[in-house]
């Protein structure tokens, strides 16, 4: 049986005046039903563009130039725009970081949740409205019957994020992509939202791609984790294994720099420098300038993913 989602060789580029920015440089990822895959990296590493590519929502002047994205065996990149619209929001749904900018301020939240039900499931206005109340109750919004008449600005950040999740789940999608779903929220509310997502994913056996830079959330929630750097996946493994035995120097550096692992008052580990310019081609490993173990050859050779342990892939010629 084909995987729920299988991305191979994905390349997404932006044609800018100053050159071609290669944001995603050959990404391979697989998500199975019921699985949570965490996609981790720092700003500009291409994680959000990878997600946007799956839904074919890359903002212009960006475009997908190579690769395939198979959803239950069907290549999404080969579909007509009309067929794609039937999948978007229906079989693959997205939860965005900032609910204030992704909810429409001039419609009530009830209307916005019901919209997907009317379009994709063909429900009548009344039936969709009833179902919207049901969904908002499911995601833990108290007195949902009254809240459906509220506009987004009348709700708190945590409540808006719940509305976003209700919208995403409205059509019982098979795959949910959540881009930093709790970054804008306080920790006590974040914990509530993550518990909710976990419960719903398990109940409905949905696949989840969780995009985040919060490694604590990843460690607690994801089955598999992929680390992205400069448009490439540099390491991917079952989550517990990745945190127990990180192999790529970037992953190791990232973990070592966390205050959680530092001794209070002592220096934290850091790596010097910044990410490389993604305009044009990068020869060799994009991390070599900042790498503590890299050498000249790392800048010349094309480095492929290799399997260091069962299911543990790493893109580095120095390990294991």
């Amino acid at each position, binding site marked *: 049986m084909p995987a729920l989602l299988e991305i191979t060789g994905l390349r997404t580029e932006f044609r800018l005046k100053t050159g071609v920015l290669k944001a995603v440089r050959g990404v391979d990822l697989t998500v199975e039903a019921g699985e949570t895959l965490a996609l981790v990296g720092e700003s500009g590493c291409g994680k959000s563009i990878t997600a946007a590519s799956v839904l074919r929502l890359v903002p212009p002047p960006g475009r997908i130039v190579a690769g395939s994205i198979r959803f239950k065996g069907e290549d999404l990149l080969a579909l007509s725009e009309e067929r794609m619209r039937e999948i978007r929001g229906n079989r693959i749904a997205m939860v965005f970081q900032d609910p204030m900018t992704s909810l429409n301020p001039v419609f009530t939240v009830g209307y916005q949740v019901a919209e997907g039900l009317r379009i994709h499931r063909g429900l009548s206005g009344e039936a969709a409205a009833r179902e919207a109340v049901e969904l908002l109750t499911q995601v833990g919004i108290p007195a949902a019957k009254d809240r459906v008449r509220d506009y987004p600005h009348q709700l708190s950040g*945590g409540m808006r994020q719940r509305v976003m999740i209700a919208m995403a789940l409205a059509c019982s999608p098979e795959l949910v992509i959540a881009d930093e779903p709790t970054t804008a929220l306080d920790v006590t509310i974040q914990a509530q939202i993550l518990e909710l997502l976990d419960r719903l994913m398990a109940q409905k056996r949905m696949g989840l791609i969780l995009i985040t830079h919060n490694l604590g959330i990843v460690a607690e929630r994801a089955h598999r984790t992929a680390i992205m750097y400069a448009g490439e996946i540099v390491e991917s493994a079952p989550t517990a294994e990745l945190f127990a035995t990180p192999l790529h120097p970037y992953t190791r550096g990232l973990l070592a720099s966390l205050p959680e692992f530092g001794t209070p008052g002592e220096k934290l580990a850091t790596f010097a420098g910044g990410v490389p310019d993604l305009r044009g081609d990068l020869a060799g490993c994009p991390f070599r300038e900042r790498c503590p173990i890299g050498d000249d050859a790392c800048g010349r050779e094309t480095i492929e993913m290799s399997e260091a342990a069962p299911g543990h892939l790493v893109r580095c010629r120095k390990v294991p």
Partner: protein
Amino acid sequence: MMPLLTAENLVKQYPVRGGMFAEKRILTAVAGVDLELHPGETLGLAGESGCGKSTVARLLTGLIPPTSGSIKYEGRELARMSKAELAQYRKEVQMVFQDPFSSLNPRMRVAEIVGEPLEIHRIGDGDGRRDKVAELLRRVGLSPEHMMRFPHEFSGGQRQRIGIARALAVSPRLIIADEPVSALDLSIQAQIINLLQDVKKDLGLSFLFITHDLSVLRHLSDRVAIMYLGRIVETGSRDQVLNRPLHPYTEALLSAIPSIDPKKRTRHVIAKGELPSPVSPPSGCPFHPRCPYARPVCGEKRPELLEKVPGQRAACHFSEEIFLKEAK
């Protein structure tokens, strides 16, 4: 030893209007905060958004006046300071802001941004200031060659270094830093944390560090204070508060942080519901509607911030019963 900075029963209220014909109501952002900061110490002030921690920072730097209460700097009341004393205070207490993108003037060159405090406080002259700016840039890990550039030419981490250089320009004794690393990427966060620690150690500064990130709080603070809905609900040494909290809100905050280390994962004590509105705070203990241990008295009587064990104070009626039972 006399504290460097003391806040007593600090209150800040704002009038808010519900709508065109609605009655004017009062939003209490800070509802009676007591703080003490000793020379050479780092005090970490933590809490979730809307708890009033940034308002406390702005009150302490004198950017806004308190509604009531007092702030004392080396025993002298801020509200009674002469103009000259106030200018000295503003020189000795500097601020570092969260967002390095909006806190630097985009039309000024780095040399002007970092040199401006010297000009305002009339320290040095042209050449002297130039040398000082060069020295400050080196101090924060930038190069004097960066002097003639504009903020947009720098990354977030570099901009935060510029903000720190500006704060250090007039040789302050106390730095109030409001979420200085929250807007930065992980690998950059560690660099700025290290820099703040370096300057603290080398220059013998005191720090008031405001954050919502408890792992950063643990790393940087000597003492910590936890705020909830305009009040301090718990305070004590770093290890006391973060290893053995005596307030249910601190416990809920600590257990809500997702941890990488499976050994550190405790059972999740989830705070129910959301932060109440500071316009109509709950009666009694402000945390009682969300507290898993709340009893009837919690809704009636507000608990005072009292010393429960030497050095550690908590505002909870049942600290002893909930958290200190096994110790007895």
